């Protein structure tokens, strides 16, 4: 009997370890693809440049004299490529968190009105920002970020008063979404045609707005939030078993949900403030990650981040290929490219469970 039990144990331990190795390989694979896409993204641009020049320019560093390649790579293309990476990661993580805390596969970082709030903030600054003694390239991101945090605080306050169930969170979030959407429409209605064009252009998320400041700020916010999210890894996995179950296993479900919600708001604000709203990444990346490595958040959080980066980087590459000037905002491409990807994931899932 005991010999039998031991035999069963080692078999399952080996099986569990094998599964962990497979998942680690998936993470490694995603990392390689991500890196490859960033280099590809760097090598494509209006001026064209062979890969060897790209690599030598990267290796030479940003202060390598005044070669054209250095300027193009380090000051024009790299901020955009890195921004694609960081924003993709932010949206991937925020989307996964949102789907977990709302227990809803349709949720994305924009479900609870954060993007609408950011859009309103940006529109507000574009219309009235000239009155403030700050350069426009700073004031718009600050306004978008601040308005996202305002939306977060409104939802947080409502949820705190009414209860932390997914239903209440969704209802409050949808309310805030519509509030900011109509405020934004109001501004658009009142704006002059020139201003309106600027607002609309901001709303199409575009990596052209990236620069080293935006990369630094967004990365900073991400690196501040990620450790906090990772410290909840196991709790978030338990939350996937359902509220009642998680509570019975000693988790303060309400507190976990509120804490995650604030972190999602910060990540989303960081992602959209500089480049505008980029849809679909936050919805699709978590689904791809979950289909590949399951819902153990030790694996799905990093993979969701990397898949988000992969989607955004490939959208950037794709955009430059179809329009070498790079004028098509990446936000438009991700939405169009994201739909087939979503169908593919749903189809693969259905086939596996059938």
């Amino acid at each position: 009997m005991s010999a039998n039990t031991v035999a069963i144990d080692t078999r399952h331990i080996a099986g569990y370890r094998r599964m962990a190795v497979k998942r680690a390989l998936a993470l490694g694979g995603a990392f390689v693809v991500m890196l490859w896409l960033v280099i590809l993204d760097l090598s494509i641009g209006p001026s064209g440049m062979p890969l060897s020049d790209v690599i030598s320019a990267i290796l030479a560093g940003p202060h390598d004299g005044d070669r054209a390649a250095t300027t193009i790579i380090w000051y024009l293309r790299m901020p955009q490529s890195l921004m694609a990476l960081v924003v993709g990661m932010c949206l991937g993580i925020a989307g996964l968190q949102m789907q977990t805390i709302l227990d809803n596969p349709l949720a994305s970082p924009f479900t609870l009105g954060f993007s609408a709030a950011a859009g309103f903030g940006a529109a507000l600054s574009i219309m009235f920002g000239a009155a403030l003694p700050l350069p426009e390239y700073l004031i718009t991101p600050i306004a978008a970020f601040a308005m996202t945090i305002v939306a977060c605080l409104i939802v947080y306050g409502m949820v705190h008063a009414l209860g932390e169930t997914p239903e209440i969170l969704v209802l409050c979030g949808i309310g805030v979404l519509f509030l900011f959407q109509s405020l934004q429409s109001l501004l658009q209605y009142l704006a002059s045609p020139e201003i309106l064009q600027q607002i609309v252009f901001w709303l199409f998320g575009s990596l052209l707005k990236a620069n080293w400041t935006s990369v630094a700020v967004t990365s900073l916010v991400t690196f501040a939030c990620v450790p906090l999210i990772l410290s909840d890894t196991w709790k978030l996995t338990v939350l996937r078993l359902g509220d009642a179950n998680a509570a019975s296993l000693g988790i303060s479900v309400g507190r976990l949900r509120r804490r995650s919600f604030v972190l999602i708001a910060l990540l989303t604000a960081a992602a959209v403030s500089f480049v505008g709203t980029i849809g679909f990444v936050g919805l699709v990346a978590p689904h791809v990650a979950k289909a590949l490595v399951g819902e153990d958040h030790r694996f799905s959080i990093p993979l969701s981040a990397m898949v988000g980066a992969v989607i955004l980087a490939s959208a950037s590459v794709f955009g430059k290929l179809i329009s070498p000037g790079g004028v098509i905002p990446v936000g438009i491409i991700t939405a169009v490219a994201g739909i087939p990807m979503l169908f593919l994931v749903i189809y693969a899932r259905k086939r596996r469970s059938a």
Partner: protein
Amino acid sequence: MTQTLAIRDLGVRRAGTDILSGVSCALTTGQVVGVIGPNGAGKSTLLSAVAGQTGFSGTVSWGGSGSGARHKAGDIGYMPQSCKVSASLTVLETVLLGTHERLGWRVSQGDIARATGILGELSLSHLASRCMTTLSGGQQQLVLLAQRLVREPRLLVLDEATSALDMSHQISVLMLLKRYVVRHNALALMAIHDLNIAMQYADQLVLIHDGRLVQQDAPENVLSVENIRRCYGLDVDLVARAGGRPVIAPLAQAMA
């Protein structure tokens, strides 16, 4: 050393209605106690109050410490009603989550061995690498029970641990729990719907009706013809059995 779960004058009020009132009883470790009563009697509320998941008046003390405050985790293994799992987690992963406080970035050999051991005891080893969403309701219920047992709690509070199981699985779970409470000097308090199962396999029964405790005693005393008629509105015959407790046979259609 035996430990006692002492419930004194427990009451739960929700939206102006008394769900439970004046429930008092004392239960000692080493036994499986069935909580019975018709639908809506307050069984689930009682169990969730004992587990510290619902606010209540009165006192619940467990081995000297009050469970009125939220001291839920640790010593109590509470299994709530109807928890269907829709996550793509394997059975083994789900059981491991039972001890989530202990898990680190790398799951230790000991933790996996403990989880697989419990799966073995519940004859679920063959499902270890299956995804939870592919299991039947009964299988999921067994896995969630395993998730509670892997914490090795001294007080098990099970609301619907057997409701989705076939008869032979119900019996094997009850036998397993009987072994568990003796080995760990624990107390299992569980809702049981099947009165015959409750009669045959529980060490003691607590009968709840309309939010009040009707009787707490050995099964053959609690499940009397009068009690069943009064609480369930059902006329039954108790068929005596040689060397065992009687079998409950319903006579006619009740609640016409």
